[in-house]
């Protein structure tokens, strides 16, 4: 099962086994990782599952679909490596992915 590492803004590391097919957001919510709110439940409608993807991973991820960048406009302190974790579907290729959780979601 792919391992995903979530790092909170106060530098706590959580490495979790997440089933293929779940999203990085679901992996966080189901394992009670703090800082990912996912208010809209994965509909790409709220930007409260915002994460920063570490540089070496950013280019390996599937590209953003229409609308994701628009939603990131709304996110708290967006950066060039911002993604919405509800749009990142876990697969073997994502094994070892590291995401940083912002200090706030809104």
């Amino acid at each position, binding site marked *: 099962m792919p391992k995903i590492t979530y790092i909170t803004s106060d530098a706590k590391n959580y490495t979790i086994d997440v089933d293929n097919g779940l999203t990085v957001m679901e992996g966080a919510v189901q394992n009670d990782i703090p800082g990912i*709110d996912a208010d*809209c439940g994965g509909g790409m*409608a709220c930007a409260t599952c915002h994460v920063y993807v570490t540089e070496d991973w950013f280019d390996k991820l599937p590209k953003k679909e229409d609308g994701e960048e628009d939603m990131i*406009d*709304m996110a708290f302190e*967006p950066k060039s490596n911002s993604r919405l974790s509800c749009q990142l579907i876990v697969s073997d290729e994502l094994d070892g992915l590291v995401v940083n959780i912002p200090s706030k979601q809104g």
Partner: protein
Amino acid sequence: MNKTDALIIGAGPTGLFTAHQLKLIGLNCEVVDNLDKIGGQCIELYPDKPIYDIPAVPECTGEELTNNLINQLKPFGIKFHLSERVEEVKKENNNWIVKTNNGKSFSTPNVIIAGGVGSFEPRKFPPKECEKFENKSIFYSVKDKKIFDGKTVSIFGGGDSALDWAVELSKISNVNLVHRREEFRGAQATLDKVKELTKSGKINLLTKYQLVNVNGSNKLESIDIKNDDGEIKNLKTDYALGFFGLIMQLGPIANWGLNIDKKTIEVDTEKFETNQKGIYAVGDICTYPGKLKLILSGFHEGALAARACFKLARPNEKYRFEFTTTSSNLLKRLGKKE
């Protein structure tokens, strides 16, 4: 003081259908919502997105679903209190006294919280110091544009609100329009207008910048904006406006003494009552073993909570279950029978 059999907090799909169920069984109800329109998340977050899992409705958008629910309420003439946020709930004898931020108050034996993920509030600028200028030099909506006359206004955001206000205020103010990337997501016509005004020097367009700092003592004097490469620019400005859409916050409900688990309220599955007698929670905001955050679950929860309200609103009457197909009582309430 508004007296009612039940007060519904939240005018999303669950709140609307709960109102339908209350009126159908002969109870009065009123609905409060912090948004300025009916529909909740369906209208605010995904008015144009198709929904495929409403029973017997193969496909509809958030807006269509809302309009259909409003139509279904037509026979009942329900009173909506929009742009009102519920602040306080207090027990007084057998009733709950509910107060809103604008001073409206309600007395009711039944409060049904159909609040979704919370009330919609504007998203704010990240720097903490912005708070002290809020509603003085920093705004997240425009109530009176005259205050900007002849002043420098820095507008942040990439959607229609930011673009529309940049165009509008460029007639009376010096406008900086600041956005985190080069692409805007507003209407093309407005975007063309912004580009034209930028060319003619009426709008100072700054893309790939974000707000990092605000300066001033009593009122805003200047702001610092930073681009992706770390370059910081200082802008003299009298006002800053942020248009980053809305976010949902549980707000004052968190302080009502309800059992709350991860921003949701624990209820039983018979009445959808919380740990406080006469306060119910339905829809996305409630939780119980097996809870599904689906609109259809909200409808079911509202129907049962409405029946539970009957007992407290009409303690001396007995509730009788009836079908709309056959009951002349129900048909009368629906306006289908004299």
